[in-house]
């Protein structure tokens, strides 16, 4: 263990980042095990936490209802007086714009970086700097999309994910603004570093074995990236004991449940018809989640 290999990134013993775990001067395997334990404990307790929730990524297994949850949280955050910016970072699946009541898809963000070379070189920008064609607004909610893979020969979604990453990293939020990202399904999108710049990860979980497994993995990976605030939202919960059983399973995986969205006939109807999500019980439930989060 060289000092340039310190797990906490301290370049030398007794640097500000050094916690005196003892790994660098351990002589026996017992000492190394003890040092390892101290590191784990420290990392768990000191995952960076920003004071305010500002950039929220919504993840989860495919079909768990990420897009619906994004729409509900958007309404709830608006109710709470926040100015919401929604980014659709799911490359393969249309629908979020429609759920929010957006008419006409905005130009894809991947074009923003392609067309205008200067934009990708900017270190920081604000919402006002983004040309109007890339933002669709309805009722004060601003909506952007990375673009969709429509052509089967367009290839890998990496360049789309790259523009999402740049936006999340470089967009400077003003007071009262909240950014919500609708992520791609599953754990694959974690590879592209989009979430690294988010301060909060919300995992949408439906009461199913697969969904719980995926949630556990996402939480583990988010912590590995140093994102401190990770929580689960239970979705499509039928009124029985499923909620408490799912919560228990998630707790075993160290994932905290922030709130529950019960199965709602209204939502199912909206999803079936493809109409915007309206105010209702589900939005009230989402409001509870928002206040737990803030």
């Amino acid at each position, binding site marked *: 263990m060289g000092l340039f*290999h310190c797990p906490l990134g301290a*370049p030398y013993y007794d640097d500000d980042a050094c916690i005196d775990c003892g790994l660098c001067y351990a002589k026996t395997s017992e000492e190394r095990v003890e040092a390892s334990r101290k590191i784990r404990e420290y990392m768990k307790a000191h995952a960076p936490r920003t004071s305010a929730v500002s950039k929220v990524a919504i993840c989860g297994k495919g079909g768990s209802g990420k897009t619906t949850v994004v729409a509900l949280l958007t309404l709830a955050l608006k109710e709470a007086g926040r100015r919401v910016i929604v980014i659709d970072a799911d490359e393969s699946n249309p629908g979020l714009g429609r759920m929010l009541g957006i008419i006409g898809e905005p130009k894809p963000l991947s074009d923003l970086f392609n067309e205008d070379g200067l934009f990708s070189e900017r270190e920081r920008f604000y919402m006002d700097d983004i040309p109007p064609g890339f933002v669709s607004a309805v009722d004060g909610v601003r909506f952007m999309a990375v673009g969709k893979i429509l052509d089967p020969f367009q290839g890998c979604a990496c360049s789309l994910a790259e523009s999402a990453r740049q936006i999340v990293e470089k967009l400077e939020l003003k007071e009262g603004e909240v950014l919500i990202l609708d992520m791609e399904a599953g754990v694959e999108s974690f590879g592209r570093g989009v979430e690294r710049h988010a301060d909060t990860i919300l995992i949408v979980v439906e009461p199913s074995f697969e969904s719980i497994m995926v949630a556990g993995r996402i939480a583990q990976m988010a912590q590995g990236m140093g994102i401190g605030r990770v929580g689960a939202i239970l979705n499509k919960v039928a009124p029985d004991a499923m909620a408490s059983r799912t919560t228990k399973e998630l707790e075993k995986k160290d994932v905290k449940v922030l709130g529950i969205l019960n199965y709602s006939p209204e939502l199912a109807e909206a999803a079936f018809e493809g109409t915007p999500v309206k105010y209702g019980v589900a939005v009230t439930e989402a409001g509870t989640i928002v206040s737990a989060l803030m």
Partner: protein
Amino acid sequence: MKKPLDPVEVYAKLKARIEENKFPIEPVYFELANKIFPGDKEIMPRIIARMANAEQAKIVAALPDPDLPPSAGRSLEVSDAFARKLGMDRAVITKHIRELFEKGLVFPTKKGPAMARTFLQLHDAALGNPNYDKSLGRIYYDLWGSIEGPMTKPVPGNLPAGYASEVRVVPRWPSIKDVQGVQAFEDARAILKSRSLIAVMRCGCKASHTDRWCGIPDESCITVERTAQYNLDRKTGRKISADEAISIIEKYDKFPTVHLAVNQRDVTQLLCNCHYCCCLAIKVAQKSRFICEVDPKKCKGCKVCVERCQFSATSMKKYEGIEGEKAFSDPDICRGCGSCVITCKSGARSMKLVRPIEHVPESLSIY
């Protein structure tokens, strides 16, 4: 790449050079060396003797300064009382300590300036700064190199069961760019792009193997975050942007080197470009989540991959129904560095994701 040399021969020459240039050592250097590497009477005292002259050694032996008030914080300053005790001017002491900080022997700890605590702390710090090469001399680097023994190729085969690797192989990013499921922690581009500070510096390991034959430039150690800051503070390395760092590692694609990083997900230390002729860690580096595969129908039999593989995983073999010998990569030996994939002109080699995410530990809590 230069012609591979015989590591045993190279090592014998190195030892001979040390013998030829042997110099007597003052007792103070034994005293200092004993704090870092107890028992060694030959190498470590001489290393420290090259780093610190008699006056500087006297200062280091008296550190840490017992009269420094705790309010002083982390710094390279000493107290007036300390200077009086040594009978030296405080400004002179400060100048000496600054030099030893830049060389990597002294560090600004919470108790004021103090000598390196462990052997590896000294190793990592004391080899990276080229600014004192003239006064340190080749003998200094030979002394360091002699500690590691002959730099032989890693023995093909698996690491011992349950072996806790402190470093892991990070694949060359062009080799995995089209693979589905690549994670941020194994994509060198994503790693570099998400760092807040990057500094490229002279690789200390390479500096200590003066006869290395990998051919990669000295400036190939990509440090990040606090490690980068430390090196910039002691005037070594230069600050670069993520894009510059990416173009540097792209330039190094022509060398058969392997990226190594600490065996955890978040890279907060450095990204190495290692070759067995000048790096010991490569022998015990944990495999990446990938292995390479060969399509014998596309392989033209040029053997570049056989030459490039550091781990002896690639060889030539006869495939049934295909004329001539074609490349074969042993999946049990391959550590998934991607070095052979990026230079395969016929596109016969590709990377395949074979291990789960948990293969790379969240933090280096491997014990």
